[in-house]
């Protein structure tokens, strides 16, 4: 059966997840690892416990295990698509409040839009736009984020005409 993007759009566009709280507060050690990754010696992060702005979603999501809880991946995996290979193409962040070690964050996601448009990787590529809101323990919004995700098939799946949905 051919992939029916209209049905997928009708069922998933506007879908919102419930607010989910991080199991652990913002911690020093992941900040140190982040800084090590990019040779960032900024003492505001390493010594004073400020959270680098781009780490708020890391601390607000449930971490990479269990896998289904990891940021938007669990949500994206539930949306029917011909392929299952993911690429994050664009991202935009807006911050409203600073975050520090010890803060506890929560996160919720929304599926903003779904489109099907051919790419060089796959003529049946699906484009999914998501909106994420991150709050602190007082439920004040600390950041909003949008992602543009591309979901595609492998060259082998394209060659054999395989579609998962």
């Amino acid at each position, binding site marked *: 059966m051919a992939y029916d993007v209209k049905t997928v759009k009708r069922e998933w566009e506007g879908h919102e997840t419930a607010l989910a709280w991080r199991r652990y507060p913002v911690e020093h050690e992941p900040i140190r690892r982040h800084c090590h990754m990019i040779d960032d010696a*900024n003492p505001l992060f390493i010594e004073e416990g400020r959270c680098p702005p781009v780490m708020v979603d*890391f601390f607000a999501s449930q971490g990479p295990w269990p896998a289904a809880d990891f940021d938007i991946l669990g949500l994206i995996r539930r949306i029917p698509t011909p392929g299952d290979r993911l690429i994050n193409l664009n991202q935009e962040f807006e911050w409203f409040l600073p975050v520090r070690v010890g803060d506890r964050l929560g996160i919720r996601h929304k599926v903003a839009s779904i489109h099907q448009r051919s790419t060089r990787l796959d003529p049946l590529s699906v484009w999914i736009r998501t909106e994420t809101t991150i709050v602190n323990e007082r439920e004040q919004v600390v950041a909003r984020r949008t992602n543009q995700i591309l979901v595609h098939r*492998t060259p082998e799946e394209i060659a054999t005409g395989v579609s998962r949905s």
Partner: protein
Amino acid sequence: MSATPQRYQEDVANGEELPGFSLELTMTRMVLQVSGTQDFYPIHHDQAFARSAGHPDIFINTSFIRGCLCRVLTDWIGADGFVKRLGFQMRTPNLLGETISARGRVKQKGPDGHIEIEVWIESAEKGVTVPGSATVILPARR
């Protein structure tokens, strides 16, 4: 370690270059990427998986890229500056073996200390691979 010098809105000029930095994407750096981001999607560490998806090699992930772009800003704004917005487009993957540079340039000084900044990642081989833009808020001198 010493704190980064404070930047004030009065000291900023349109067109000013932010210092930025460069990183060689060695296999060790790719491992640091997985450690730092906890992103275990194999396209960023498993060469066979990346090639099976049609890519020439493993490439750095979104969190690594935005970490670099954000560092360009936080290295520059000082302790009392605030990163308000960051957006970017990942147009070309940066692969294992490349050397990338993260850069920035003041585009427009706005009201109330809001500074619009162009940010980007480039490599010698590919030019700009990740264009982006950001807004930071700088304090005024008292």
